[in-house]
């Protein structure tokens, strides 16, 4: 299944669905509509996508988790998540899928920085604020995950059924990408990064506003540390349980 979370993406969602269908014609394409205020649903329906319409706005994490839940209940083995704004190139979906099938890992992340001609320039291309955030998260996640991760904020991810099982029950609700990595690591699951292309967003606007840009790292860091310290089985968790 290819999962496309969408909120107010009427300008891009139809072309994303069509591009995905051209690359993986047999796959179910599920657009999870996070209660958009525009014509996202109509546009996705027009090009024949399946729609999972949320009754009210849940935010990205709740939206993606709804798709994971449905995929798990419908017995799908692999789910590739592609953003509805057209930033992810569907041509890379087979790369993620192949890695999931062959590399014995639970999650595959499409990284825009792997194999980039100039990784540093690629990092700063998104603006200094984003570059600083990614650098910060990289350095925090490295000791936690026990290995480097080049693109911890990437939303272009593929998961297998084991990860689906976990995520359909527990998934971070806001800014989920980074926390999801920690959730997987705590369960001794493996992840892999594969190079992918990131394009300019075709329409709509980013959900990260100026205020949220400051709130985002605080929220994520708190979530990461809570996950690290209090995951079931940790020493602190056992003490609190007693």
């Amino acid at each position, binding site marked *: 299944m290819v999962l496309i979370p969408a909120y107010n993406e009427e300008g891009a969602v139809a072309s994303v669905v069509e591009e995905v269908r051209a690359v993986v014609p047999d796959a179910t394409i599920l657009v999870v509509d996070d209660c958009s205020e525009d014509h996202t649903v109509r546009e996705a329906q027009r090009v024949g996508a399946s729609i999972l319409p949320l009754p009210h706005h849940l935010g990205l994490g*709740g939206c993606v988790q709804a798709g994971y839940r449905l995929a798990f209940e419908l017995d799908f083995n692999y789910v590739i998540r592609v953003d509805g704004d057209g930033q992810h190139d569907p041509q890379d979906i087979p790369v993620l899928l192949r890695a999931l*099938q062959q590399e014995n890992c639970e999650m595959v992340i499409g990284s825009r920085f792997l194999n980039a001609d100039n990784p540093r320039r690629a990092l700063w291309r998104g603006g200094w604020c984003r570059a600083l955030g990614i650098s910060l998260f990289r350095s925090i996640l490295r000791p936690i995950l026990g290995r480097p991760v080049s693109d911890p904020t990437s939303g272009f991810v593929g998961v297998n059924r084991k990860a689906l099982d976990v995520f359909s029950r527990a998934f971070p609700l806001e800014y989920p990408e980074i926390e999801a990595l920690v959730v997987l690591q705590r369960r001794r699951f493996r992840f892999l990064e594969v190079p992918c292309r990131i394009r300019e967003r075709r329409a709509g606007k980013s959900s990260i506003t100026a205020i949220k840009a400051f709130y985002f790292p605080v929220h994520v860091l708190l979530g990461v540390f809570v996950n690290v310290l209090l995951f079931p089985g940790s020493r602190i968790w056992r003490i609190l349980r007693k």
Partner: protein
Amino acid sequence: MDRLLGVMTVASLLLIGLVLASVRREHIRVEYSISWLVAGLALLVLSLWKSLDQRIALALKIPDLAVTLLTVCGVLFLGVLFAFSLRLSQLKDSSIKLAQRVAILEYRLESLAVESAPNTAPMRADAAGAYGTRAKMGQSVR
């Protein structure tokens, strides 16, 4: 000090009155009014019973009675706010699960409707698509 206690008495009476009125109009459910009523009554008692305030100040080793009162009020309201934060978080979790369940059920219901009426035009272009292509996707990706 007496003026502060007077203000506290009025504030606590206003709080209790407001909460009771809200309960009567069903703006606040009874179970959620209890924390506020307890806080309001505690404030009222503190504002009317000066010797109790002095004892608390002595126990906390805070020389200024006014600071003691403000500390007690602060702790009281922080407790109420924390209790409501817990409740809000539980409600948000329930609401998210419920919304996801509703969406999934709606999706499955519509898929079943399309599957059971194959000759009619589908309400959604690929409503039964997940069921129809699942086997193919399963073959191609397993």
